[in-house]
């Protein structure tokens, strides 16, 4: 029944968005959709998937919502909601009776990723209401108890309702700032999958796939936004290396040792094309630039022939729009491929105070010290990196490095 689940997930966000826009009630929209899903599982298994599953799901969810309103204790207060729903009808668009519903998902994306919501709440709401993931699935992806995740989702919906967070696409003057928040939430989802913290799997592919799917939806809804293209490109380029980043034992493999034949060419091609198209728009942003760096790696025949100078130059550009010591660290790591490491020790040391809880900092510092023959110090910093590491596969890799010194 995998096909069935995929169909439901593909249509979930659209129907929840449309219903909640009409009845201005996320809870009710979500509950109605959940009931529609349960009906679909029963009916479709018996009599097959209908010709127009979206129309089927929408009509069923609408009836479920009407039912719920009718049975509500305060029905008298909900007459208007009821009437709005009754009036909401699908019209056949073509002669083949292909139903289409107005796409209200962008509103819902901006509601779920509102800056007044804590990022962890926004992540949960986006996966539940737009992605159609069950609360159990989301909890599992974030290694939390279902109850904890359920409470988080309830808290988010309550805040939306009682604080008056609107179902609205932001005004032009706020749009790009608000879009940034949406992109951050989507990137958080991707990263939690790509660099999984804790748990027994180094990559939680389900989250990566979901983040890519949601970003593709956002790209479809705002095709002109260069940073949306940039983020989608970045995710595709990162994801293209998933088969080579960990070996069969689940241990991390650094990029220089990865088998580039395992990289997904189709994703690389898409990622590069999106990056180029975004950069052409001349609305530079950090996702596009990070994608551009990832694209340079993807294009290189092997690690040695990577265009490191270009990588360093893009890091400079990135730093000019976003000052961050993590970016400075990555820049130094790239620079160490073309400059004597001895000269980079001092600049790395300068980052220590702000990155003292950041595992990659110690891994880079240890690596530099090892390269200049300071093995004893290198050992000390590898140990620090190991102590801070939350990803088991990566931890194994660092321990291995330490032991080989």
């Amino acid at each position: 029944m995998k096909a069935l689940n995929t169909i439901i997930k593909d249509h979930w966000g659209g129907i929840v968005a449309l219903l909640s826009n009409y009845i201005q009630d996320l809870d009710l929209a979500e509950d109605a959709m959940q009931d529609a899903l349960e009906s679909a599982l029963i009916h479709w298994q018996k009599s097959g998937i209908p010709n127009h599953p979206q129309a089927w799901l929408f009509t069923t969810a609408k009836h479920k919502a009407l039912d719920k309103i009718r049975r509500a204790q305060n029905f008298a207060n909900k007459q208007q909601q009821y009437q709005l729903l009754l009036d909401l009808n699908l019209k056949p668009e073509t002669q083949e009776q292909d139903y289409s519903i107005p796409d209200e998902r962008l509103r819902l994306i901006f509601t779920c990723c509102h800056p007044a919501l804590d990022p962890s709440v926004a992540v949960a709401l986006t996966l539940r209401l737009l992605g159609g993931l069950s609360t159990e699935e989301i909890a599992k992806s974030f290694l939390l108890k279902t109850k904890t995740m359920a409470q988080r989702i309830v808290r988010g919906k309550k805040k939306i309702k009682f604080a008056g967070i609107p179902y609205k696409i932001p005004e032009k003057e706020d749009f790009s700032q608000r879009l940034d928040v949406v992109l951050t939430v989507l990137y958080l989802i991707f990263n939690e999958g790509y660099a999984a913290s804790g748990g027994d799997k180094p990559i939680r592919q389900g989250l990566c796939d979901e983040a890519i799917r949601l970003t593709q939806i956002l790209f479809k809804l705002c095709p002109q936004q260069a940073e949306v293209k940039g983020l989608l490109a970045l995710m595709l380029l990162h994801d293209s290396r998933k088969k080579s980043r960990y070996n069969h034992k689940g241990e991390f493999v650094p990029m220089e040792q990865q088998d580039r034949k395992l990289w997904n060419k189709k994703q690389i091609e898409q990622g590069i094309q999106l990056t180029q198209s975004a950069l052409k728009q001349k609305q530079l942003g950090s996702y596009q630039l990070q994608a551009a760096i990832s694209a340079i790696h993807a294009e290189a025949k092997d690690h040695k022939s990577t265009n490191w100078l270009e990588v360093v130059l893009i890091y400079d550009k990135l730093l000019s729009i976003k000052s961050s010591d993590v970016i400075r660290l990555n820049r130094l790591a790239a620079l160490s491929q073309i400059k004597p490491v001895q000269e980079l020790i001092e600049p790395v040391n300068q980052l220590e105070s702000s990155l003292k809880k950041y595992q990659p900092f110690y891994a880079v510092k240890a690596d530099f010290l090892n390269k200049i023959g300071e093995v004893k110090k290198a050992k000390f910093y590898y140990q620090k990196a190991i102590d801070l590491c939350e990803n088991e596969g990566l931890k194994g890799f660092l321990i291995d490095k330490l032991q080989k010194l």
Partner: protein
Amino acid sequence: MKYIALIYAAENAGPQYGTDEFDQMIGEYGSITERYEKDGVLLGGDALQDVNTATTISVRNGKTETIDGPFAETKEQLGGYYLFECENLDQALKYAAMIPSAKYGRVEVRPIMEY
């Protein structure tokens, strides 16, 4: 919806009384209040006297306990508020962001419970 914007700031933060910057800030408060009125969102608003004038009471077992000072000994103290009638949180946040003290203090926006 009704929203309250609670204005918090540390007492020594921002322009100090008697300086040109302070007068300018008072001027800014005047013009935003006019703007709120013109936009029809203002239900009320006041500045509070200094936190040194605060008295906190609690009643336990019918007995009133009185303490000289504010409820919470935090660095940032409640200094004033605005009460808005807005369409939604976005609008309330937009108006709250115009409050001059937000530049050096903080403004907490809360919806008012309606029965």
